[in-house]
């Protein structure tokens, strides 16, 4: 196979380098901004130490780069605090992980606690005890609660709503519960149900997938995209809700809701590790 011209490669590296730099900034800012308000002093210390000692290799969000994605790899998430503290303190020479004895007991503990927040695990992990039964939750998701009519998990389910395999990874149980019982509190623009009426009187209701000042595209439950020109529409009604039923809080029992949340949390924990986001495209050393 032919290698690309040097010029093209150089250009790509520069572009990619710049994009990566911006991405890192964004990711870094987002990760810290998210955790800042509720952060205890030792967590703050942990964030700083993570940034100065770990982020260079593991990424500012712990999702990998030069070294593994310790925020998402199930085998790392599954380690005990004591294991993690040991690894930070002594390193893993055969894995290329250096030892950080200079962090001291307090610093090491803070870094591990911060890593737990990146993993979406309760600060004093191991993984939080689940209120519900994940197996019952799975049955609920694909059965009575009909979540899978619209949501997909690990390739099973519908297409109208968000894919949820790793949804719970960075969310607490109470956040997930809120999203189920109060789904429109944080309505995503591309989940909003919109009804339109054309000038000729015909009407259509769907989820708005993309829009601008001239056009609006609705997707109906059969999967079809409807590409509409605003100039042909008499009415465009933006509802304040998605397709998600608003009544799960009453439709399901507290136990069933806990089961659903437990299922989502366990699914997120076991989700396949995502490949690292595009950070470095350095290549062609031949």
């Amino acid at each position, binding site marked *: *196979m*032919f290698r690309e011209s040097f010029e093209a490669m150089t250009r790509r590296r520069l572009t990619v380098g710049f994009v990566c730099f911006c991405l890192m900034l964004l990711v870094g800012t987002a990760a810290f901004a998210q955790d800042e308000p509720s952060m205890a002093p030792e967590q703050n210390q942990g964030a700083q130490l993570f940034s100065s000692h770990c982020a260079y290799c593991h990424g500012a969000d712990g999702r990998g780069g030069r070294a593994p994605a310790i925020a998402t790899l199930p085998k790392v998430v599954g380690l005990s605090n004591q294991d993690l503290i040991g690894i930070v303190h002594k390193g893993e020479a055969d894995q290329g992980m250096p030892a950080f004895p200079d962090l001291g007991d307090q610093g090491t503990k803070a870094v591990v606690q911060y890593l737990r927040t990146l993993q979406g695990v309760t600060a004093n992990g191991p993984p939080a005890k689940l209120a519900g039964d994940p197996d019952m939750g799975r049955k609920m998701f694909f059965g009575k609660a009909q979540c899978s009519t619209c949501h997909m998990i690990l390739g099973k389910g519908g*297409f109208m709503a968000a894919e949820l395999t790793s949804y719970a990874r960075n969310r607490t149980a109470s956040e997930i519960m809120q999203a189920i019982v109060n789904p429109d509190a944080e309505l995503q623009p591309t989940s909003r149900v919109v009804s*339109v009426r054309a000038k000729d009187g015909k009407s259509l209701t769907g989820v708005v997938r993309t829009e601008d000042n001239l056009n609006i*595209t609705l997707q109906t*439950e059969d999967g079809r995209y409807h590409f*509409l020109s605003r100039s042909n529409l008499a009415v465009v*009604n933006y509802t304040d809700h998605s397709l998600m039923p608003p009544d799960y809080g009453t439709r399901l029992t507290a136990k069933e809701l806990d089961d659903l949340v437990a299922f989502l949390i366990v699914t997120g924990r076991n989700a396949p590790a995502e490949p690292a986001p595009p950070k470095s495209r350095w290549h*062609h050393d031949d």
Partner: protein
Amino acid sequence: MAMRTGRKSVVGFAAFVMMLTVVALQGQPAKNSTKAWVESSASGDALQQGTALGQIDVQQSELLQKTIKNNWVSYNGDYTGRRYSSLAEVTPQNVSHLAAKWVFHTRNAGVLEVTPVVVAGVMFITGSNDAYALDARTGALLWHHARGVTSGLVDDASGHINRGVAVLGTRVYMETDNAHLLCLDARSGNLIWDVAYADNTQSYGATSAPLIVKNKVLVGTSGGDDGVRGFVAAYDAQTGKEAWRFWTIPAPGEKGSETWPAGNAYLLGGGTAWMPGTYDPELNTIYWGTSNPAPDFDGSVRPGDNLYTSSLVALDPDTGKLKWYFQFNPHDLYDYDSVQTPVLVDATFKGKRRKLIVTANRNGFLYILDRTTGKYLYSKQFMKRMNWAKGIDKNGRPISNHLIPDAKGVLVCPGFAGATNWYSPSYDPQTNMFYFRSFEGCDVLMAKQEPFKPGRPYYSTGSRTPPGDVANDSYINAFDLTNLDFAWRDKQIGGRQAWAGVMTTAGGLVAFGNNANEFEMDDARTGKPLWAFKLGQPMHASPMSYAIAGKQYFAVAAGDDVFAFALP
């Protein structure tokens, strides 16, 4: 912003008033009632090829279409690989009015090598490991499946190149840089399954677009210069289960293995299938090109013809069994991959109607083969500066000049970029001409024996530009199958080289990326340049055409953008 908010509030108010009407009309609350819509004429919906606009559900009949109309359903548009669109709205007479309609910026790709696929007004493209669905009329994003790139890959895979998707039913399929086959829901971009079909820690990667044949998804890999054994593999489109795998290099004891030395050279020998193949449903045969053998420039460690590298293999799509092969470059020493699209042409050849394959090879010769038997029928040298061969013998085997790369280096024409390459050719049944881009570049190729090191390229040294070599010429060529000669050859002006393919239309146009970073349209009969649009960045991609509501569009990728064009 203020104006926009204001306008929305007005709309919102009006909508509130009208909502009651809508609710009344539908007889139920708007919430959770999307099934209760009435078909809207506002969308300009029109049935096209049995598929409603915006409704993605690709049937076999559509993949088997004999002519490319509104939809461009695969990398090459149809199974013949001829990239000829039957759309005829744009003609030599009106092409001067062709104008840009939209640009889509992918943000994360280096240089796109994708050919867009369009179904029912929805365009699917890939850039690196990401897939996108766009409104093909406006370029607006409908969904984006984001997936990080893989680190630690070798050679071409490490460039995260991707050439696009395949579609079947409500599903979209793509390969990833680390040789996974992804199945996505075409209506959401949701991942349905993900199958690793080669080991990226063993120098495999992927850059191609998959090809759907019946109920299977066919894939290949990159890594042919890096010490892998090539293959074409088929996966069940529903389940992702492997159906068959054809190794392009026979194992010891199998037929063809006598063309390799004893030992493990065959495991490192290349022959990867890094471009989509073509398919003849009547003959129930797929045609796939393979890459050069490895190590590229040192043949001393792999004496023999090295089957089936630098070859075309004809396979049974149900079983993966070999029907016939034709090797363009036995024991190649010059990086002459033979993955250029093997175009299926039904035409009169020397007075007899035949099922042919026409292909221009990287080695500088154009070939015509009988695609039923694989029999060699004809060849024509198209590279003017060629020095590696004197010609082709009656069996189709090159008469080599025995230029052997050594430590000092030897001048070889064409060089390792090839006299043509993976960028698309096209066959226009109206003109009976075969169109392709060619390049007159030479290289000094050097070789020295080097041990294979896992995870490293396996070229066994490399190349340099010949001293004092002038700028090399490129041509867009029109080869007339009626009289077996060139109808025209247009020398390209304005830049060193381009990596952009060619397509043709029933409107009488040949469209291609020219050397000046422009998308250009010429008169297909004469080659007269009629229109060009400066894209401002290099094209490493091949163009396509589609239609929505009777309007013909062209699309091509340049840099990390996709551009679409239509008449006003």
